[in-house]
C-alpha cells in the first residue's frame, strides 16, 4: 500500500500545475500559521486604525488601507488564517460526517443503504446556499455558525464516495482474510477499508476546501459572514465591493488571494485525481503546461 502511495506522489510530482498549486497552498498556509502563532509579519495589526484612510498601495501600505485606515496587507494575512482554517475545518467536518455516513451505508445491508442514499438524494435536492442561509440565520453570526452551515452542505460527496469504495472493497480478498483472522468489523473498517478508500476521498476533499472558501465569501456578501473586525478574505472582498471604482485595491487584493487559493486547490485536486488513477497517462504533461 505504501508503495502505491509513493508512486502516487511520484506521479503527482510530474504534473506541473499540481506542483505549482501545492506550492502556493503551502506558502499561504505557512504565512497563516506564522500569523496565528503571533509572529508579526507586518508593522500594523489587522484591526489597527490609522489616519490614512483609503490610501492606495504604497511603500508603507503595500496593499493600501481601508475606510478606517487599517492596513490591507495585515488584514489579508489575518484573512488567510480565517479563510484557510474555515476551508480546512469544513473539509474535516465533511470528511468525518461523510465517512461515517458512507461507511455505515456501504457496510450495512442493502435496505439501510437504500434508505441512507435516499437521504443523500434529499440533501442534494436542497440548494446548498439556501441551507447555509437558513442555518446561518438560525445559528447567528460567528465562526461556529458558519462552519456548521458549511459542513452541512459538504458531506454528501464524501459520503457517496466512501460508500462506493466500501461496496467495492467489501468483497475483496484481503478483507475476507482479515475477517478470517478474527478482526472485528471496526478494525476492518479503520485498518483496511478506509486507507484504501482514502485516495478518491482526499481528491474530493481537495475540492471541498475551495468551495467552502467561495461559499463563505458569498455568505459574507449577503451579510451572514463574520462580524467585524474579524475579516476573512470573503468579508474583505464583499466590503471592498462597494468601492470598486473609487478604490479598486480594496476588492482586488482579497479577490486575488481567493482566486489564487481556489485555483491552486483545483489544480492540486485535478493533479491528485490524475495521479491516483492508474489509467491516466502522464505523458500528456510533457511538452506543455496545463493538464
Amino acid at each position, binding site marked *: 500500500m505504501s508503495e502505491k502511495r509513493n508512486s502516487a506522489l511520484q506521479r503527482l510530482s510530474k504534473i506541473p500545475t499540481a506542483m505549482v498549486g501545492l506550492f502556493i497552498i503551502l506558502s499561504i498556509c505557512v504565512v497563516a500559521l506564522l500569523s496565528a502563532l503571533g509572529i508579526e509579519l507586518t508593522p500594523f495589526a489587522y*484591526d489597527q*486604525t490609522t*489616519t490614512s*484612510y*483609503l490610501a492606495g498601495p504604497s511603500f508603507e501600505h503595500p496593499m493600501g488601507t481601508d*475606510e*478606517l485606515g487599517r492596513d490591507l496587507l495585515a488584514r489579508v494575512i489575518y484573512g488567510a488564517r480565517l479563510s484557510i482554517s474555515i476551508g480546512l475545518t469544513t473539509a474535516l467536518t465533511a470528511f468525518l460526517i461523510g465517512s461515517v455516513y458512507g461507511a455505515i451505508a456501504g457496510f450495512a445491508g442493502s435496505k439501510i443503504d437504500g434508505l441512507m442514499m435516499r437521504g443523500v438524494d434529499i440533501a442534494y435536492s436542497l440548494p446548498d446556499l439556501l441551507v447555509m442561509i437558513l442555518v446561518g440565520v438560525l445559528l447567528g*453570526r460567528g465562526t461556529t455558525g458558519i462552519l456548521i452551515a458549511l459542513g452541512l452542505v459538504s458531506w454528501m460527496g464524501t459520503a457517496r464516495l466512501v460508500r462506493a469504495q466500501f461496496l467495492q472493497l467489501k468483497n475483496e480478498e484481503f478483507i475476507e482474510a482479515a475477517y478470517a483472522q478474527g478482526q472485528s468489523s471496526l478494525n476492518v473498517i479503520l485498518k483496511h477499508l478506509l486507507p484504501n478508500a482514502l485516495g478518491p476521498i482526499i481528491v474530493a476533499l481537495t475540492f471541498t476546501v475551495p468551495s467552502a472558501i467561495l461559499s463563505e465569501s458569498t455568505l459574507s456578501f449577503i*451579510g451572514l459572514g463574520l*462580524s*467585524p*473586525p474579524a475579516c476573512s478574505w470573503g468579508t474583505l472582498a464583499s*466590503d471592498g*465591493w*462597494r*468601492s*470598486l*471604482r*473609487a*478604490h479598486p485595491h480594496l476588492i482586488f487584493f482579497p479577490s486575488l488571494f481567493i482566486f489564487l487559493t481556489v485555483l491552486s486547490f483545483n489544480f492540486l485536486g485535478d493533479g491528485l485525481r490524475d495521479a491516483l488513477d492508474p489509467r491516466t497517462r502522464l505523458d500528456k504533461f510533457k511538452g506543455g503546461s496545463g493538464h
Partner: protein
Amino acid sequence: MTLFVLFICTCFIQGGCAEELSHLRKPYEDGVLRINLGTEPPGLDWHTSTDSTSFDVVSNLMVGLTQYTNELEAKPACAASWEVLDGGKRYLFHLRRDVFWTDGKPVTAYDFEFAWRRLLAPETAAQYAFFLYDIVGARAFNTGASKDVNTVGLKALDPYTFEVKLAKPAAYFIYLTAFCPSFPQRKDIVERYKDRWTEPENLVTNGPFKLSYWQHEYKIELTANEKFFEGAPKLKRIKMFMVPEASTAFALYENNELDFVDNRSFSTPDVERFRHSPQYKNFPLLRAYYLAFNVSKKPFDNADVRRAFALSIDRKVFPKILRRGERPTSSWIPPALGGGGSDSGLGFNPEEGRRLLARAGYPDGKGFPETKLLYPNREDVRLVVEATQDEIKRNLGVKVELVNQEWKVYLATTRKDPPQMFRDSWGADFPDPETFMNLFTSYNGNNHTRWHSAEYDRLIEAAEGEQDKNKRAELYRRADVMLCREAVPIVPAYLATQNIMVKPWVKGIAINPLDFQFFKTVTVGDTAAGEVSKSP
C-alpha cells in the same frame, strides 16, 4: 466555431452601440422621475409605518391640514385657514371644499376625526401616537386609562370644521398637522379592506400623486393626480425603485437610469469622486445619529459606565471616515434649533472615562461583561460602528461585539428588546427642539433606551407649554444637560448631511433640512432642447 462566436459578439456590440447612441439622444423620459428608495417600505399605512422610506412615499401621496414650505413654515393645505383661540388651547380648522380623494369623494373633517382617533387607539399600536398627546384626553385614551374616545379633545363640528382642544398651549402644534401621522384617512376604506387598504387597488389618497403600481422589492410607481387641488403636478410619473446596494444605485445614476440620488445611493467612495461635480449638493440635515444604551441591562444600568463610554469616543473621527461634512455633536439639540452649548454634553476625555470605568468596578476594562452593539445592515453604519468599537477598545480596553441585522428586524429588535448598546438615529419631524427632546420622555414609543426620568418628563412638559422663548430654551437646555451629561442614556455622535446628485434635466428638487422629499414641484425634461450633458 470561432467565427460563430465572433458573429454573436458583433451582434451584441452593434445592438449595444445602438442602445448607447439612443442613450445619448435621450437619457431620460419627459415628465418621468426615477429615484431610488433603497429598501421596500414596510407598509404604507401612515399610522403604523413610520420609517423614512414609508414617509417618502406617503408624503407624495397625501396632504394634511397644513404643509411645509421650503423654509419650513406651515402653510395651509387641506385647511384653508385656522383660528388659534383660548390662548393657544383651542384650534379651529376651516377646511377647503375643493380637496378630493382619488375616488372623487371630498376630504372632510370627519376624515381627520377618524384618522386622529385611529392614531390614538390602543389597538393601532401606533408608534407616533404620542404626537397628539398635547390634545386633551389623548394620552389617557392611548394608554387605555380612558376607554371613551369622546373624551379626546378632537371633533368634527361639521364637514368642513375641525376643532382641536389642547391640554396646554403648544407653540409647535401647528407643525404637527403637516406631518404624516396626522394625515386624514377614510373610515369606509379602512374598515372595508382592513389590512389591505393600502394596496394600490384599494388605496385612496388626496395628494399630488396617486399610487398606481407596487411591485414588491422592486418598484413603486406614482402617477400624477390631475384633480389635486393645487393643480396637477408637472411630473406625469415617479418611478421609485428599491435598489438596496448603494453602489449599484449610484452606477444606475451614472448610467442615466436614475435621475436623482441621495444618501441612500451614495457610498463613501462615491462622494470623493463627485464632490466637485456641479450636480452634487451637500446640505446639513436635522438628523442626528447616536449611540444608545439599554439602561435596563447590566452593566449599563450604572451611569458611570455610560458616562465612561461617552467620554471615550472621539467624535472627530466620524467626519473623517464618512467625508460628507458631518458635524460631530455632544448635545442632543442641533445647533440650528438652538442647541450645541459646549457644556451640554460630554466631550472626548479618555482619562476621565477610564477613571469612571475603574470607579464602576472595571479598571482598564477588566472583567467587563460581554457587550453587544446592534446596528442595521447599512454600509455607512458599519463604518461608524466599527470606528466606535475601535475607539472604545483603544480608550477603555473594552471589546464590544458588533451585531448586525436587516433593517426591519433591527427596527423590531430595538423596539422589543435591544442589546446593551445599539446605534440609532433620529430625524426631526418638525423644526423645533421639541421633536428631539421629546424622544426621551417616558411615553414616547420611539425611546428604546428604557431610560426615563420623571424630572426629565417634567422639564419637557413645562417647555412644551412655555410661551416665553428664553424660558423655554432654558428648560430645554436643562433637559439636554440631564440627557447628555448626567444620565447619559445616549451618546450623540454627529449630525448628518444630505448628499444629493441631480441630473441637469431635473428641476425643482426641494432641499430642506427635514429631509422631506416632495416631488410636486419637480419637472423632468422641458429644458432647452438638445442640452443633454453626459453623466460625469
